[in-house]
């Protein structure tokens, strides 16, 4: 009864393509390499979405794939978000491994029924008969003055839906390895990129941690700083500053995936340091950070020397003015301040929520 994935079609006819060499220099090219390899290795992998083909992707992630793999593997769609996701679901149930793209995670609202009521629940509702092995690539976050409808971080919506996997790479290497892993997943993976990371430079490491394991990006003893996606980098900067200015040795953890969620690594670290700050770009109330805090204050209760603080996006829509946009999400200063508060080393003056 609980056979995985496809029963209607038992196997695809692999028509393997020639490899497409991609030189990895940044987050974008790492993603592209994963896509290219995935398509070469498995003829069932197709890409569909708006402007993914001829245009090469709104953020150029899929550039060159259409030319290499052809129009039957890289499908430009009309502007029909709900149907894009729904089509990917049906294809995934019948033998393909689609990678659908929504140009902005902000457009998820148009497809939320297909995402949360269909993709996430099909395996369960149907008693395990079939899975939905699809990847839904989306990008979110601030950094381009793109305004309230093109700058959101909506991972908390997705993380709240049982059945969805949520991957959020912060590094070049994870962009590659997590996307490769997503293509192996028998469950629907919401793959969330950050628009301000595409040009982030870095190298491909030889290997990656398994999916579901958080990465300790910097070991430390005094306080645990937890983040993911773009905010990881600001958190690392904050840790640097804390080391230099306050002689504080912070541990920095990168979640990598929100589902699966590695509660153990977090609990171990916070139990050791006794203090923590969780940093996420999404709006404060109902943020991913809230979930982490709620777990940690149970798991590490006996070791906590201070409340676990959150540094998140403000509880406002993202304004278009570049100055206001920048102020609407966490910066290094706010992270450092929160860490100092948690360390009891400086009193804050700001209003509580």
């Amino acid at each position, binding site marked *: 009864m609980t056979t995985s994935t496809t029963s209607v079609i038992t196997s695809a006819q692999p028509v393997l393509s020639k490899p497409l060499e991609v030189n990895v220099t940044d987050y974008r090219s790492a993603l592209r390499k994963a896509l290219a390899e995935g398509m070469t290795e498995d003829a069932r992998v197709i890409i569909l979405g708006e402007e993914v083909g001829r245009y090469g992707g709104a953020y150029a992630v899929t550039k060159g794939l259409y030319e290499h793999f052809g129009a039957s593997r890289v499908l430009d769609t009309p502007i029909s978000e709900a149907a894009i996701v729904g089509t990917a*679901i049906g294809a995934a*149930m019948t033998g393909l491994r689609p990678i659908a793209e929504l140009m902005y995670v902000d457009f998820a609202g148009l497809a939320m029924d297909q995402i949360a009521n269909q993709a996430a629940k099909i395996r369960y*509702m149907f008693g395990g008969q079939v899975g939905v092995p699809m990847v839904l690539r989306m990008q979110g976050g601030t950094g381009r003055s793109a305004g309230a409808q093109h700058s959101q971080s909506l991972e908390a919506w997705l993380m709240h839906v049982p*059945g969805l996997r949520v991957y959020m790479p912060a590094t070049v290497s994870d962009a590659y390895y997590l996307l490769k892993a997503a293509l192996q997943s028998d*469950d629907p993976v919401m793959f969330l990129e950050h628009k301000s990371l595409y040009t982030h430079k870095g190298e491909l490491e030889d290997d990656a941690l398994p999916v579901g394991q958080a990465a300790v990006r910097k070991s430390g003893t005094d306080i645990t700083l937890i983040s993911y996606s773009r905010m990881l980098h600001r958190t690392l900067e904050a840790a640097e500053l804390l080391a230099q200015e306050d002689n504080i040795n912070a541990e920095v953890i990168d979640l990598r995936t929100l589902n699966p969620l590695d509660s153990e690594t977090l609990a171990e670290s916070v139990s050791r340091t006794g203090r923590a700050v969780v940093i996420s770009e999404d709006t404060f109330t109902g943020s991913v950070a809230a979930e982490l805090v709620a777990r940690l204050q149970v798991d590490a*209760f006996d070791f906590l020397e201070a409340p676990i603080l959150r540094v998140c996006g403000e509880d406002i829509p993202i304004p278009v003015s570049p100055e206001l946009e920048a102020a609407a999400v966490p910066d290094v200063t706010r992270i450092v301040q929160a860490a100092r508060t948690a360390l009891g080393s400086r009193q804050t003056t700001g209003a509580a929520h």
Partner: protein
Amino acid sequence: MSGMSPDTTNTPDATSNKVMLELLTSMVRIRSFEERVGELFLKGQSAGTMLHLSIGEEGAAAGVGLALQEGDSFTTHHRGHGIFLARGADPNRMMAEIAGKASGYCRGKGGSMHIADMQLGHLGANAIVGGGIPTVVGAALSYKTLEQPHVSAAFFGDGALQQGILYEAMNLAALWNLPAAFICVNNQYGMGTRIDQAAASLDFTARAKAFGLTAASVSGEDARAVYQTATDLLDVARQGTPVFLEVSCYRFHGHARKDKSPYRDAGEEALGRTRDPIARARDSLIATGNLTQIQFDAIQRDADSEMDAAISFAEAAEPPTLASMFEDVYAPTATKPAPVVESWQP
């Protein structure tokens, strides 16, 4: 039928007695099943009250169901028992699912509105009006990509004609020349809303044609006509032009088991119930000397005892284990979620 020239040479069986009898038997089984679903509810044995009977719509289910071929797939709306039966469902496992039992098609997790069977190509019933429509675009894309000769058909009610996703799906299917079929079972009502209270313009084939589909409308009272039209259209779809078929019929009973349709005029309802595809098929076969009343009674009796057995099966079936609740959220290879009990010791 409009928008295409029906090629009846393709469907030599359509007028044969064999096909007519097959359609009749299929319809009788469906109605017998549905009547017993109602009983299950009255006995308090169904999982919930959300039971949507397809009585009056058997012509659509049997006709299109027979026209579909092995390997084809389909999705249905919330009123999909008949279609699934017409495609070969096992009434025992269906009834068990509707009762929320472990031996049901979906281990008691899906119920009437989420029944599915990958073996028979049933990609799932759906409780979201319109929710299962784009699924068939995806399935059709698989068939085209994998060079398989199948069609995927979405069944939905007239209510879904006002859901935007239908038009997104039709456009995509037409744009990509996919073997997809959009089958609208127009039973004149969406809950208490008559179709003309939901749509300003009632020529739905015009909508489909404007999106580039081949489209037709047929009366569901005439199962043979449904079968013929569907056969022709599915042929078109198989060649890569998606199709739309409206089967008009009448919802004999209330929307769900508790609804007594107070919003319908008694006269209209009585008239509507005369649009009976079973009576029509039976009478025509008898009139042409191809069926006797005794033979019909035997068909009915067989169906009834088959469906009585399904009721007994469902009643005797075990409920799912509590542990099974945490299964099937993710692929079997993954760690299962566990009951959340936050623990702490002082």
